[in-house]
């Protein structure tokens, strides 16, 4: 049994007076595919944003790849992490956003190669060769020279996935990556993610409202409500035989709203 790649320990997060996460703890094992589900405002996206260091934390500890994410040792004492420490830790983690967040002034290929060239000092030729491989993988090799504004939503999201992969993170975070897409474009993005899940040993955390996809994709499903894990387990159990009433109600509403399970 190896050590967890992510350990969340007694995590608190407040926005002003609003407590979003309250004493949350869970571990993620290396290579695990985790789906975080639950109603809006339950704190799922906040967890991903905290792991990507896009938020600050109000209390608790997070360990990533055996090191504290938001804390560091200085003079034998634990102090809040500085920018240099965060920079080092971010190298382990990649994220794909709901609204793609591509760089609009860069071509598709440049979107992918920018960070490897700047942060890892990769030679352009090597970064571009790798970028083309990734575009091949997401089925967009012919769009390498296109600008993001010329792509459909599904294509943009696939480029965003390639961009995150280019840095070869050990952990990938997917934040409602299909929520902003037209229904007929969802499938192409999910297909890429399925391939990714089956072909790599990357650890993946997925926040989604696509229950059918979560079922197929995840090794473990966490059901969140009001910043707490109400229930967790293998997808077979959570989706077909949830024990908590809150989970049952949520899944019933989701199905009624037309989402597949």
């Amino acid at each position, binding site marked *: 049994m190896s050590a967890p790649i992510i350990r969340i320990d007694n995590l608190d997060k407040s926005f002003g007076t609003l407590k979003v996460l309250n004493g949350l703890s869970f571990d993620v094992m290396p290579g695990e595919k985790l789906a975080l589900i639950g109603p809006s405002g339950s704190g799922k996206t906040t967890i991903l944003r905290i792991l*990507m*260091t*896009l938020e600050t934390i109000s209390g608790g500890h997070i360990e990533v790849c055996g090191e504290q994410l938001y804390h560091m040792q200085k003079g034998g004492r634990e102090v809040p992490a500085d*920018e240099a420490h965060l*920079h080092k830790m*971010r*190298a382990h983690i*990649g*994220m794909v*956003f709901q*609204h793609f*967040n*591509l*760089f*609009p*002034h860069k*071509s598709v290929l440049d979107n992918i190669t*920018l*960070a490897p060239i*700047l*942060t890892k000092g990769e030679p352009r030729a090597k970064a571009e060769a790798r970028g083309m491989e990734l575009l091949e993988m997401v089925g967009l090799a012919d769009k390498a020279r296109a*600008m993001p*504004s*010329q792509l459909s939503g599904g294509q943009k999201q696939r480029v965003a996935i390639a*961009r*995150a992969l280019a*840095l070869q993170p050990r952990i990938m975070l997917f934040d409602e990556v299909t929520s902003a897409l037209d229904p007929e474009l969802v499938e192409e993005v999910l297909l890429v993610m399925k391939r990714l899940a089956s072909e790599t040993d990357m650890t993946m955390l997925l926040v989604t409202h696509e229950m059918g996809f979560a079922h197929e994709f995840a090794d473990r499903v966490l059901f969140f409500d009001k910043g707490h894990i109400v229930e967790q387990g293998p997808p077979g159990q959570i989706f077909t035989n949830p024990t908590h009433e809150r989970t049952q109600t949520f899944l019933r509403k989701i199905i009624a709203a037309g989402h597949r399970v």
Partner: protein
Amino acid sequence: MGDWGGYLSLILQGALVTIKLTVLGSALALVMAFVAGLGRVSRFAVLRALATTYIEFFRGTSIFVQLFWVYFVLPFAGFTLTPLQAGVMALGLNVGAYGAEVVRGAILSVPRDQYEACIAVNLTRFQRMRHVILPQALPLMLPTFGNNAIELLKATAVVSLISLSDMTFQAQVVRAQTGSTMVPFVTILVLYFLMSLAISRGIRALEARVTRGLDGVR
């Protein structure tokens, strides 16, 4: 009437001074705009305070007074400048203060999710600004920069007050010597107009260049 050629060349000499002041003044203004504009969005309070002080001071006092200070008062502190240097400095610092607010506004209007994408791909603060934020902010700055440059061009006329023979000054000379008011003033009217036309054309061409591929974004 035979001397009109000579008078015209006098005005053209003045035009050269005006162009020199505009180009050098704009260059200084551009540098100041970026230095102070970036200072305004810095995470260091000291830099923010310095930038704010500079901007408020130069926007809050008259260009005439600033010019007099640079040319007549600074020598008492041991800095003696030529009239051209003083003119460039006063114009550049004055217009740079306006430009700084343009830079700041444009930087702040780049959507937050662009910053987040930069963090997600682990760019440093400097790389974020240099490769992602500024390239997107620049197209937003250009139209106002064009206005500022034209304002600067027209403000160059104040330098005649510190004995610099710019275009307006030379027109006055020609008027005094010939007694004709119409000819010299129509001439400089046309010349100022052509110069500002050149600026706005230049800015438009630049805009077209930096916004290439950005269609559909804004």
